């Protein structure tokens, strides 16, 4: 593990609302360089809202989001990826009527040219993508689309990868394969902020985690602390004590 103490990314007192409804009520978290950090929580806890606020698809009501000492909240969404944060969104959001290859090329939109080494690496991580590169993304299975969404996000050579629910609606066997490759991506030096409903799988992968509960952070700690916590077990791992 390449974990260090350098804080790469930091959220302070973030508040986000939809109209008059507060979705995120002042959360703070930090991610160090090289870490895998998981944000867990039930449906509607505000996990995806947090991710969208980081990418500036949603504007924060107040608070700060800093990446390498740059404030993101005043930035338009299309500039965030240029700083080195890439977002694989919830529901995958691949460009369905474009081919797998075209999707990957769009991932490299901010690069003056496509990094062939990165492309080869992505095809090594997910060989299925290379096999299907001429196929329309919309015709892929859910798991393959998830691979494509992650691969597409990696095409910009990000320092930090935001993964929103990579296991959502995917066959368990593929979830395993995808999580294995997420570990691989982290080992290559990419810092990862992961949102998951599948708390068990996420905590096996992550170094640390935060549990969101209706817009606030309920618990945080290292992955093993959270796995051992009876509160987490009760609420998210389906074990009764």
């Amino acid at each position: 593990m390449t974990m260090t103490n350098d804080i790469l990314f930091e959220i302070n007192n973030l508040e986000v609302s939809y109209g008059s409804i507060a979705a995120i009520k002042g959360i703070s978290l930090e991610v160090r360089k090289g870490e895998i950090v998981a944000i867990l929580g039930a449906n509607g806890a505000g996990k995806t809202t947090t991710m969208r606020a980081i990418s500036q698809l949603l504007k924060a009501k107040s608070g700060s989001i800093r990446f390498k000492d740059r404030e993101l909240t005043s930035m338009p969404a299309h500039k965030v990826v240029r700083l080195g944060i890439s977002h694989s969104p919830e529901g995958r959001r691949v460009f369905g009527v474009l081919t797998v290859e075209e999707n990957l090329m769009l991932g490299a939109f901010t690069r003056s040219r496509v990094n062939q080494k990165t492309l080869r690496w992505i095809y090594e991580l997910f060989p299925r993508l290379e096999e299907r590169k001429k196929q329309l993304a919309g015709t892929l299975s859910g798991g393959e689309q998830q691979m494509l969404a992650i691969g597409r996000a990696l095409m910009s050579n990000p320092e930090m990868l935001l993964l929103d629910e990579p296991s959502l609606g995917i066959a368990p066997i593929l979830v395993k394969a995808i999580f294995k490759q997420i570990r691989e991506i982290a080992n290559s030096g990419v810092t990862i902020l992961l949102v998951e409903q599948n708390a068990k799988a996420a905590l096996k992968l992550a170094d640390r985690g935060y549990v969101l509960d209706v817009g606030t952070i309920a618990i945080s700690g290292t992955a093993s602390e959270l796995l051992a916590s009876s509160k987490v077990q009760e609420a998210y791992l389906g074990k009764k004590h």
Partner: protein
Amino acid sequence: MDIFLQQLANGLTIGSMFALVALGYTMVYGVMRLINFAHGDMVAAAAFVGLTVYTQIMGEATSLGAVIMIFLLTAIVMACIGVVLERLAYRPLRTAPRLSAVVSALGASLMIQNGIMLVWGPQMRIFPELVPQVYWNLGNVVISLIQVVILLLSLVLMVALYLFIEKTRMGAAIRASSIDQDAARLMGINVNRVIALIFIIGSSLGAVGGLFIGLYYRGITFNMGWQYGLYAFVAAIIGGIGNIPGAMLGGMLLGLFNAFIAGYISSTWADAFTFILLIAILVIRPTGILGERVAEKV
């Protein structure tokens, strides 16, 4: 057979004008899900701008160079107006309910129409003869130089647009933005810039269409944008709104359909049949010939 060939030539000519104008509708719809009702009036305005460029700037010259300059200057002026239109009439309503933007488009349409009337007057103006009156008699079929120019230039522009959309980085950005704007932003695409670009391209192609209408029909009126805009809109629907090759195909088909109705039935009825065709398309295949998505609201 003579009628068939003659109307084929006429149909392809008006079809390419419809297609150029339809591209503006379809590209804006593709990215913004908005029917830009002002587009037809932009096309009409282009004919008047072209007229003024001809008389005031080019000194009524009709050399090849002068004609090219008239086309270029008109396209540039209309592209600028298109960008301003988007900034003022549509961008502030980007997140508003869709109906608001449609109402704004209708307002912009009326404003441009009345603007033309204020500047150039309500009476019909005669568009200059920029292309010499040369005709070829092929048997009993007459083809004019204007028809050949319109058809060829339209084809060149459409092929260029197609290559731009399919092969370039900005083309990919336009396609991505038309599929999923948020996902496009995550790729680092500046969607506002894509939308501005779409208005530049759509308005310039519409400007060329407007100049062609002036060249071909000669008489131009301040309110003609409504009619030609409606035709082009129908063409975009026939091809599948939001679909670029669809607009090209729809324009050509509608032009041919119109010409054959005029040739075999009656030109008075051509409009009625056009709208019967529109209704038939909407009933039988609402996604149009090449469209994949069903037009949702509006």
